[in-house]
């Protein structure tokens, strides 16, 4: 298993992390090392095994679908890097 530069560039884009070209080579090497080590899982026969999808064997509880919290815009916005009235501000997304 070997990752190439293009793959790492693609996953960095998917993860929305800017990676300068100069950092790509060492990153390719590290990620390839980790993925090679992970490859050993292929030895395990899991044909008849159901995946474990959480940390517990409990069934999740149901609750009434009602509003239990809200109407606190000042608190919600109190840590915003940029805001306008009761809104988060972001760079323009629609022309």
């Amino acid at each position, binding site marked *: 298993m070997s990752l190439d530069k293009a793959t790492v560039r693609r996953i960095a884009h998917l*993860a929305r992390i800017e990676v300068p070209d100069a950092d790509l080579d060492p990153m390719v090497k590290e990620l390839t090392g980790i993925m090679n080590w992970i490859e050993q899982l292929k030895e395990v026969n899991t044909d008849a095994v159901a995946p474990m999808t959480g940390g517990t064997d409990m069934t999740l509880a149901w609750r009434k679908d009602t509003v239990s919290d809200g109407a606190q815009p000042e608190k919600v916005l109190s840590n915003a890097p940029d805001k306008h009235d009761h809104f988060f501000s972001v760079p323009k997304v629609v022309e």
Partner: protein
Amino acid sequence: MTDLTRFTIAQARDHLRKKDFTALELTDAHITAMEKYRHLNAFITETADLARERAKASDFRIKNSDAKPLEGIPLGIKDLFCTQGVQTTAGSHILKGFTPNYESTVSQKLRDAGSVMLGKLNLDEFAMGSSNMTSHFGNVVNPWKARGHSDDLAPGGSSGGSAAAVSAHLAMGATGTDTGGSIRQPAAFCGIVGVKPTYGRCSRWGVVAFASSLDQAGPMTRTVRDAAIMLNVMTGYDPKDSTSAAMAMPDVEAVLGKGVKGMKIGLPKQYRPDGLDAEVGTLWDKGAQWLKEAGAEVIEIDLPHTKYALPTYYIVAPAEASSNLARYDGVRYGLRVAGNSLDEMYAKTRAAGFGPEVKRRILIGTYVLSAGYYDAYYLKAQKVRALIAQDFVQAFAKVDAILTPTAPTAAFGLNDKVVDPVAMYLNDVFTVPASLAGIPGSSIPAGLTAHGLPLGLQVLTKRWDEETLFRVCQVLEDSAKFPGLIGES
């Protein structure tokens, strides 16, 4: 007057009620220690004024015979728990300036129980690490030194600040969180007790998420009894966390002293690989001997999928992390780096805000979840995880508890550069399987290496059986007579 920081939580609790000293005096003694030992870098944020205010409120309640279970006890809170009005960093630059408007359920429970928060403790960035060296706020220094050496050692991680603060008597106890060993491994490195309860015992609400199917809070203290006192308070059903257990927590302080007579203890043969550190192996044998002398039967058990636990963890945990950490986008809180478009702002913010280990794990997680690789990696890992959990179910059909070493070595030097990420991941080889299975585990300080550094023994039990866990821990503690950190002060 005796140094008030020398008491255990249980002792201080009794003295406070007898009014031998005040909560304010106890808190002041710890604030003095916290300030004197700043070079350990255990705290990211000190909250001395807040602590004094809360200690005064504790004294008022004690005066009115209204003392709560942890009344007036000074604690440190790992900086992964959101604390109302107090900066919360998760050890990351990306949460720059973040001050929550709410309190995590666990830290709220500790507040409601009368405890006094001294400050927020350092940790690996987003709890990703085994050395506390990935923190944006610099590494923590282990208060222990090898005999005759002055080199600084790693406290372990990710709850390294918690372990260092408790070990050095800067706090009577601390909260930790454990995703793959982040309570148990630093507890072992710093010679203290660390308990990760069953997944679902402690609410995860308000705890900055790393890997949601693995993250679990727990206490870090100097004695088993103190851990029991804290855990009794920290656990309990919380409707705000859908995975929190709707079942009563047994009183684990009440079971202390019941012993292990008639219990069966398993020693998994897979935890003794060729090349296991000789001192670690010897201590493990000694631990088994102590339990035998206390009336338990010790047998060898088989956990056949043990060697696959770490690679499984390094798919499951990064996958969940890549999803959880998607929320850090520079829009709602924390750091924002300007960009010409929304996408560019995200990418620049995340590039500047996350450190190398966090980026590495987000990229691995994104890769194993991406189209075409999901089945081969993520689904495969979930299946192997099921086999690892099954190993424990089969083992616990034969034994009441499992005894293993906590970590493969004692604390390593801060200057021992670990260049290969996989080599660093191996620190958690003995702790990760229990995390994947969701079972409770603890580390008990059990002995010293020839160089005078602490080593821990790990106890594991089946899900929801913290009572047996604490009974075994108590016997190990009584037998080990671990000296704790002496000197320095």
